[in-house]
């Protein structure tokens, strides 16, 4: 994932990232049905594992960001899910920083939300080939837009980062390529085996009747 460590980003950018991430998170959490929390969490755990797999590129290796795929599957809930993922990476491995979490979440979540919108549009076509092609485009766009956003946050933080910011975008090209294929394949499999997993009305399938009839139903709100 794209972790900017603490120390690089300037205060105004940091503040902007924190405010937008908090707002997005609040909205995402509002949309998250408490019964769907295990579903979201187990999927997030899967994405966390996938982001640790290394893909060889020449003498080095790269890691996936998967924000396109996360956006497709989780919708608005992707914002808190990405924040949780980044928080865990900071706590477990020391990747990224803590004050910069807002900016890092913003950089990954905004492309994820755009990918979600794009994918929902493509689903109207009902045509598997179009849907799978869009999924590939989401993989590509998710990484590409994040690279641009990371570069923008660097460039906004100081003129001295401008040249490095341009290189950052190019450094993401191999990941964009890999994620295009990866996301298309993953969604193709989901479409064939469990298409209901792509419904964004989360938790609908999990709703057991007695939950809604529970007198203390408010406990779930």
């Amino acid at each position: 994932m794209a972790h900017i460590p603490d120390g690089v980003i300037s205060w105004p950018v940091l503040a902007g990232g924190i405010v937008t991430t908090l707002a997005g998170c609040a909205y995402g959490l509002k949309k998250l049905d408490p019964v769907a929390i295990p579903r979201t969490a187990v999927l997030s755990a899967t994405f966390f594992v996938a982001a640790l797999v290394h893909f060889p590129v020449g003498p080095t290796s790269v890691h996936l960001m998967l924000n396109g795929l996360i956006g497709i599957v989780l919708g608005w809930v992707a914002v808190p899910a990405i924040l949780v993922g980044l928080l865990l990476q900071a706590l477990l491995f020391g990747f990224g920083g803590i004050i910069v979490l807002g900016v890092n979440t913003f950089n990954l979540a905004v492309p994820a939300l755009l990918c979600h919108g794009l994918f929902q549009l493509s689903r109207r076509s009902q045509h598997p080939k179009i849907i799978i092609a869009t999924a590939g485009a989401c993989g590509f766009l998710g990484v590409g837009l994040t690279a641009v956003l990371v570069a923008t946050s660097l460039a906004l933080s100081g003129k001295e980062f401008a040249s490095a910011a341009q290189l950052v975008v190019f450094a993401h090209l191999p990941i964009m390529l890999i994620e295009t294929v990866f996301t298309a394949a993953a969604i193709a499999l989901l479409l064939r085996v469990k298409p209901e997993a792509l419904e964004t009305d989360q938790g609908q399938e999990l709703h057991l009747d007695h939950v809604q009839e529970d007198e203390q139903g408010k406990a779930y709100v």
Partner: protein
Amino acid sequence: MNGRATDPTHLHAEPGFAHQPSPEGLSKPWMGTIQAHIRLIACFALAVVILTLHHPIALLCALLLSCLAAALAGLNTAQTLRRMASLEGFMILVLLFLPFSIEGETLFSIAGFAASYEGLARALSLLAQSNAIMLLILALPGTLEAGELGQAMQRLHVPDKFIHLFLFTLRYIDVMRQEYRRLRQAMQTRGFQMRFSMHSWKSLGYLFGMLMIKSLERSERIVAAMLCRGFQGKFPSLTQERPLSQADLIFAVVMASCALGLLTLEWARAAS
């Protein structure tokens, strides 16, 4: 190459799950006796303070403070150093470019591009800041157990849903990692090799598509089990509160005075 590196199923960073409870009988490091929410607040506050520092002496003191915190938390030295060395690729780019993109007194030049003293100083201070904060994160909240982290977030009024999402995700990372290893091993036995090729990327895509389906099915079982046990949207264990102990108060006071000390040092140096 050691055996671990050649094991194709091993993940980039072996999660050193600090959250798993230490075996009984082992003495807890001193940091372990401090309450979780105090450590979280201290980490945030010190990180903000460190970000405002510019003077080399103040930054050096901040780094020393972080090392002290790491020692008190009983962090594994070798593992921590490895983590500090594994900078993100683009951070290396940023650091390499800084000496050339800030103008000032020329230190040396490569192919006509002059590296400035000011740029090098900026790169070094950046490195000090990010490493000092990283050490703090690993030392203060990084050594907490999952339950403690949940309680701390509850005390700091983080929304319940977020805490539950956090705890569930942490809980299932290890489970999903094992599932991944099983699938990957099955591919291995059929002769799969990870290469820079469409075939590899597609196969991994299918693998994780399969894992997503498995995780959805697993989550249905989890919800059914939770409802069966009468889950009411709250974890009772999260709401238990301990009163602050003397050690907590001492820690809070020491951390606050360290923060103030760093700020004074910075101001005094900037003024002179």
